[in-house]
């Protein structure tokens, strides 16, 4: 049997197939605290679909690794339940969960050869010698390390060790694989190469992957869906495109890509849009959540969604802003301005028209209502 054959598992495919598939992992009201007081993970609800590549993204200390460890069974939830394939796993020890795990520093066994490392989970499961050899060989071919059986981990480069760690997590054919910042120790180029590699392997096998990282680009590049963690909570779970285009929380807006966040107060409401007063200006914005006049909101405007106004009336929001500082970055011009007392960054593509932007002068900037999202400010979140 050839693991490279994508037809082996009907659920594998381009990720679109995965989206309609069943729920495979479910976090239901999971709470975790070590000292009984400080919550690490708070009332977490999350589902992972079969065959999906889901990334837990967040800054360090946001609870994402704790979630992974609870899923693997190394930590127990303080409250709530985790289900895998419909079964509650609270009482199942890690070794019986049949979950492949790739650790941050690979955790390859240094006294064993690559072949022995890969054979270990198979021998533990009592497979016979021939079956072990065959599966080890197949797993090594999957990660493109054929012929490395007799090397020791310390004879391999970082990228090769990473591949071995992935092969070892897959060799016993688990349906769920967890990865805890597996690319953190690699340099940038290797990291990007491995991102594609991991994605290729995941698609080939159609295996469900839960991946932890603090690198938003990595999360965007690899995932079907990303769960953005902040302070023990999930702020938003969506595909990378949706997270980028339609952030629902200020934290997501600022964590994924660049965003200008402006605090203001709703002055008027009209359907899905509203007028927000920010300092001495009024900005027309799209409401992500419903707001009434007088509510405090945060506006998010991406620097690259703003443009120079060459003809008044192009945008629903148009202002003449003073250029406080600017930097030429090759493909674009990064301009720091000020709006209503807030610093405001504008990204102007390096095409005709930017020559008129001069420090200390005014610049005519505009953006559309849909590119300006009004959200509840973070303080309100503790009340929901």
């Amino acid at each position: 049997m050839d693991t490279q054959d994508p037809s082996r598992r009907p659920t594998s495919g381009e990720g679109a197939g995965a989206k309609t598939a069943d729920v495979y992992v479910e976090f239901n009201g999971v709470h975790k605290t070590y000292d009984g007081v400080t919550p690490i993970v708070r009332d977490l609800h999350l589902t992972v679909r079969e065959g999906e590549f889901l990334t837990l993204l967040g800054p360090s200390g946001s609870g994402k690794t704790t979630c992974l460890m609870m899923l693997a069974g190394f930590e127990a939830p303080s409250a709530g339940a985790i289900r895998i394939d419909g079964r509650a796993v609270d009482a199942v020890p890690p070794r019986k969960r049949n979950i492949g795990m790739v650790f941050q520093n690979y955790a390859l066994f240094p006294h064993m050869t690559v072949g022995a490392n890969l054979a270990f989970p198979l021998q533990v499961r009592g497979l016979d010698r021939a079956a072990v050899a065959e599966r080890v060989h197949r797993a090594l071919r999957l990660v493109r390390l054929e012929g490395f059986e007799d090397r020791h981990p310390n004879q391999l480069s970082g990228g090769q060790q990473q591949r071995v760690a992935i092969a070892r997590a897959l060799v016993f054919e688990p349906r769920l694989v967890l990865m805890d910042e597996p690319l953190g120790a690699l340099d940038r180029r290797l990291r990007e190469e491995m991102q594609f590699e991991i994605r290729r392997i995941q698609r080939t096998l159609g295996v469900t992957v839960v991946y932890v990282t603090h690198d938003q680009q990595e999360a965007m590049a690899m995932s079907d869906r990303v769960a953005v963690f902040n302070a023990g909570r999930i702020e938003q779970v969506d595909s990378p495109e949706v997270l980028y285009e339609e952030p629902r929380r200020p934290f997501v807006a600022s964590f994924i890509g660049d965003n200008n966040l402006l605090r203001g107060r709703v002055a008027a409401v009209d359907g899905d849009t509203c007028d927000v007063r920010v300092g001495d200006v009024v900005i027309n914005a799209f409401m992500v959540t419903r707001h009434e006049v007088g509510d405090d909101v945060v506006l998010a405007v991406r620097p690259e969604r703003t443009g120079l106004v060459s003809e008044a009336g192009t945008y629903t929001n148009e202002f003449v802003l003073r250029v406080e500082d600017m930097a030429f970055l090759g493909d674009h011009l990064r301009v720091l301005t000020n709006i209503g007392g807030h610093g405001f960054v504008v990204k102007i593509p390096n095409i005709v028209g930017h020559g008129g932007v001069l420090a200390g002068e005014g610049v005519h900037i505009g953006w559309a209502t849909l590119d300006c999202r009004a959200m509840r400010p973070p303080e309100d979140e503790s009340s929901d």
Partner: protein
Amino acid sequence: MNAAASVSAPAAVAKRPKRPRGSRLRAAALALPLVAFIVVTFIAPLGTMLVRSVHAPVVADAMSETVALLGDWDGGSLPAEAVFATAARELLKAREDRVIGQVATRVNRVQAGLRSAVTRTARRLRGLQPESWRAAMIETHAAWGEVDTWRALLLAGERYTGRNYLHALDLKRDAAGDIVAQPSEQRIYMALLARTLAVSLAITLLCLLLGYPVAYFIAHAPPGRANWLLLLVLVPFWTSLLVRTTSWIVLLQSQGVVNDLLVLIGLVNDDERLALIYNLNGTLVAMTHVLLPFMVLPLYSVMRTIPATHMSAAASLGAGFGKAFWRVYWPQTLPGVGAGSLLVFILSIGYYITPALVGGRTGQLISNMIAFHMQQSLNWGLAAALGGILLACVVALYLVYDRLVGVERMKLG
């Protein structure tokens, strides 16, 4: 400022090749006092001791002509008159030079009972001018009339001898010069060596058994607690050996704490108190206690380098604790196990004070016998030979270890 930095940087680079030799010489010079100290206090005494085990020049020097004449002797019948005359002259000379006692001791070691033959003869022959030295010597001591006496003199006259080593290995040369075993009632050293090795092995295993879980516990405790626990391991280490051994006496003697407790809870009758000390048991318990840190520290230092994720990884791959431990954790601690075991074993086969204090009769080890020959019987040659055999055991062990584990993998802490 930048310019200054960029100027000084190449200058530093240009200087660099010069530095190592000077600093290396200076560093070597700093080590010289230690080297001298080691040579004077360790290598030189050790060397002379080892030389002493095979080099016995007393008789060869004092009676050189007699020994030379005996070299031509057929060994079947008593030597010729000339030999007697020479022997008498050299014995008298030796008495004048005040080495007759050493000569007598040396000859006596080859054949027991000849001490008086040598000393008495040297005393009585003084001033005599007999016609027949043979008759005169046999008259002063009948031993001179026996062929064996002269054979013993010839053997004692060997400047270099393997006799001490033979003796230490419970062997001897018979009359024909062949190497044979000592009579069974005189075979003590091999049995003692065997006991020493067995006791050392037992102590090593005990230390490993007791020390491994302790080291594991400390290595995987949170840093703050680990420091405290390590301190607990080290405090006994800093306490005087004598104090620790004496406290074992307090605990284990027949009127001691342990026996009192056993009697109190009724496990042991008052008149059948256990003999826990002044025997092999005392040696085992006290030495295990004394040597435990030497096992714990290398184990701890190795275990600390094993990432905790290895056991987690093994669990995630489906291994229970037992399998994970034996296949993943234990093999990685082998350098520490090897280092600790080698250290404890080598220290215990040469251990002297503790068995001397709490070992009684059955708990004595070979080093106590060496001490006996150094201090009581004054047979330094034999003591040196026993020491040499001990040293050979240690070296052999080291080579075996190197072969099996590899010395470069050893981690001593």
